[in-house]
């Protein structure tokens, strides 16, 4: 039996679902936030948001939008984790964040095995990374202006717009000489301007060789959300349904802003996988759908709290698989949990739809 709470008091899931339906049926400007969950739950969250006219505010937004803005302005040129591991003779790691990811261990431990670089050595370069020495690499320092400025400088050298015997001139020569180069970064750390510069650099390099970007995924299922958002609404995730047509606007539908400015009057926090709880959640009537056994599965997380199975662990679920760079399905380990986030969201929606038709 799953745990649920209404106003701090323990209850059953059914009562909590009924209370949640009651809250959202009368909400004028509800916000659905977090969205750190499996595809089934994300689909159901869109279904509910469409019915109650909610806006969507994913926890992954800062990382996603560092890329999405650039994508819609200039495009991108990328490759997959497995192609990078299998083919790259040159890997450029930008910033600090990638160094903590398992992917870096994977790619450093292997040599190119497919394609024209097969059998050659793999060189790892760092631009503005830590010098922790665990992975052999050649380090290039960041310019005083920061990562984006450094990348712009590097791009100018690679294009021949800047010349001279500097460290970046040397780095640029290495990039051009690669057979299958890959630049690894975390979009949230590099920032929108930095991503734009990196993508420009990669596209320039392809005039002379093959070079690809490999942005590392956010840890909050943001990549899964992008897929569901795009095929469900034709748009990126930060959309609002207040006018019954999905409107995409990451500024307007930033949940923290909506709460701060007093626009939002109810919130749903969907986090069946771990993600940071919004610090504003307690400031308005809210429902939390959280993973069973997580620190947030308690009565004081929100006005209404429903604990559900954790996808890929206590329940089956389709999730973004970072290693594969796509969606994959995992079954529950052992007997599946009784309740999934998707089923809870569908049940809330069904109650609201039933209430609507009863009112006619």
């Amino acid at each position, binding site marked *: 039996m799953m745990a649920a709470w209404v106003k701090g008091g323990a209850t059953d899931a059914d009562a909590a679902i009924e209370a949640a339906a009651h809250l959202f049926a009368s909400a004028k400007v509800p916000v659905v936030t977090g969205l750190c969950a499996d595809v089934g739950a994300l689909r159901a969250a869109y279904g509910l948001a469409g019915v109650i006219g909610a806006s969507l505010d994913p926890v992954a937004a800062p990382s996603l939008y560092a890329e999405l803005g650039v994508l819609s302005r200039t495009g991108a040129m990328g490759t997959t984790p497995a192609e990078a591991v299998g083919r790259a003779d040159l890997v450029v790691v930008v910033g600090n964040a990638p160094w903590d990811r398992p992917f870096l261990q994977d790619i450093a431990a292997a040599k190119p095995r497919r394609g024209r670089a097969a059998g050659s050595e793999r060189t790892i370069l760092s631009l503005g990374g830590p010098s922790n020495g665990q992975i052999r690499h050649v380090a290039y320092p960041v310019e005083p202006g920061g990562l984006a400025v450094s990348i712009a400088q590097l791009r100018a050298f690679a294009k021949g717009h800047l010349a001279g015997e500097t460290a970046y001139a040397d780095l640029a020569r290495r990039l051009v000489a690669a057979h299958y180069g890959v630049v690894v970064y975390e979009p949230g750390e590099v920032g929108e301007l930095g991503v734009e510069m990196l993508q420009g650099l990669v596209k320039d390099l392809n005039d002379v060789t093959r070079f690809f970007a490999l942005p590392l995924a956010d840890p909050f299922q943001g990549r899964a959300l992008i897929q569901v958002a795009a095929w469900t609404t034709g748009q990126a995730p930060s959309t609002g349904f207040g006018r019954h*047509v999905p409107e995409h606007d990451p500024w307007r539908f930033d949940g923290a802003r909506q709460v701060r400015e007093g626009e939002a009057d109810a919130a749903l926090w969907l986090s069946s996988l771990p993600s940071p709880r919004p610090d504003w959640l307690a400031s308005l009537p809210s429902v939390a759908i959280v993973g069973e056994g997580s620190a947030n599965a308690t009565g004081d997380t929100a006005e209404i709290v429903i604990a559900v199975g954790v996808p890929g662990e206590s329940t089956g679920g389709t999730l973004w698989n970072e290693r594969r760079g796509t969606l994959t399905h995992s079954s529950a380990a052992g007997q599946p949990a009784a309740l999934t986030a998707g089923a809870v969201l569908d049940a809330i929606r069904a109650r609201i739809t039933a209430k609507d038709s009863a009112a006619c």
Partner: protein
Amino acid sequence: MLTLIKGGRVIDPTASRDAVGDVWIEDGRVVAPSDRTPDNTIDAAGCVVMAGGVEVHSHIAGGNVVLSRLLLPDLYASESAPEGHPFAHAGGSAAWIGANYARMGYTTAVEPAMPPSNALATQLELADIPLLDRGALAVMGNDDQLLELLRQREGANAVRDLVALTVATSRGLGVKCINAGGASAFKDGALKLSLDDEIPVYGLSTRKIMGALLDAVEEIGVPHPLHVHCNNLGIPGADDSFVATLEAAEGRRIHFAHAQFYAYGLSEPGNPAGGFRSAAERIAQAMEKHPNATYDVGQVAFGQTVTISLDILRQFGGRKGANPKKWILNAGDAEGGGVVPFLYKPRGPVSSLQWAIGLEMMLLSNDPERTILTTDHPNGGPFTEYPRIIHWLMDKEARDREIASLHKVIGERSGLGSIEREYTLSEIAQLTRSGPAKLLGLTDRGHLREGARADVAVYRDDRDRTAMFARAKLVLKDGEAIVEDGEVVNWRSGRTLELSVESDKAMEKRTDAYLEDRFGTGLDSFAVPDEAFAGHDVFEDVACRA
């Protein structure tokens, strides 16, 4: 429930039927005329009754379609729509796709480019397209596992087993190859590839890879022939690639994707810089000589669109023509994909000629069942252009009016202007119903004979064929009304058609080990399990050929 569609002009070219008459339906199937009193009578007087339309090649799901929406968020307008489905009004969404096909009387649509490495995401997206039956073709021809197997000369049985396993794992309806070897060659620095050029590292050629896939598809008994996207798409002289590929099939069944993009003969012999002229006649003659072949046309429509293709070699080549100036290219686990916006300029010489060539090809066809209507959505334009295209095929006067408004190059470099032919309704049904259904091997649709699935479109007969085919008066899917007067009235879900194919246990084991080694995770992570579809009964089996 017994339903009678009464007194319409019933068009079914597979039964040589074109006369006013009745269609009887019971339990989701077309049945023999009954002497029982129908429970429901639909008055079709003044209407044309056809089987539901069948789409063989439209990019409606998958990672590249997702990227196209993110690259061009404003390509399709979102507008308010009647209640009933929360997302049908969201331009370009899965629900929008289903609704707009259904309104035109289409009831089945196939996504032709599902990368096996991204099968689950593609299948989840397809399953969210309401109203239609759907299907997807698994793309092969650039993956290291296949190319390595060919390089090692492991033989036809090994290829057959790998193809069968790939189709079974991805739950595809058939197999496609896209510029076979081209994506691999691109990753290794090549920028051009023709049928017999050597593919770096593997020492193979498109001819060898495609030949192996053609054999495998026959061996397995896949009802849909190998779906082939040739080398050199869109390049002046691409007609040579088309004809060479046709001959390379050596009599084996083969389907050519978006043939219009290959019907570009050199305008000046020996000089690709001199531009192109229509090769529609050459292609038509080649098709007559090769009854084993079919194509879909890939008609161009004017306006802004986005090209979506797994042919990354070609998309990279086309990046500088992006309009607006932005593009995405991904070197994927096998093909990947390229997404390049494109504007077909209404009065521009190149676009005008492309538009003319597509129509000319269909009008020169002596067998419309083998020359299927598509726009390669959205590559030549959106599928919502079908009604206008049908209008031009059926109405010489409307066609001449359009030609007069376009660039004069049409008269100089194509034969369109001198063609008198007007398509009949039966021929339109061949182009959009019986042809595509036969091509996919779906014997239960594309016709109205007894036993057919009751997917039926009823149109008001109207000289304005654009208006007639844009908004069907009534559409039945499996016998249930889904569209009335051009609006969706019942948001039911169709099924995803998957080929029922056994995979070889030894190949499973071998592939699992290969994938584990390459991806750090095995065959399981490529699976499309029922469990991923939230308990919905999504898939329906299609049998292999005996």
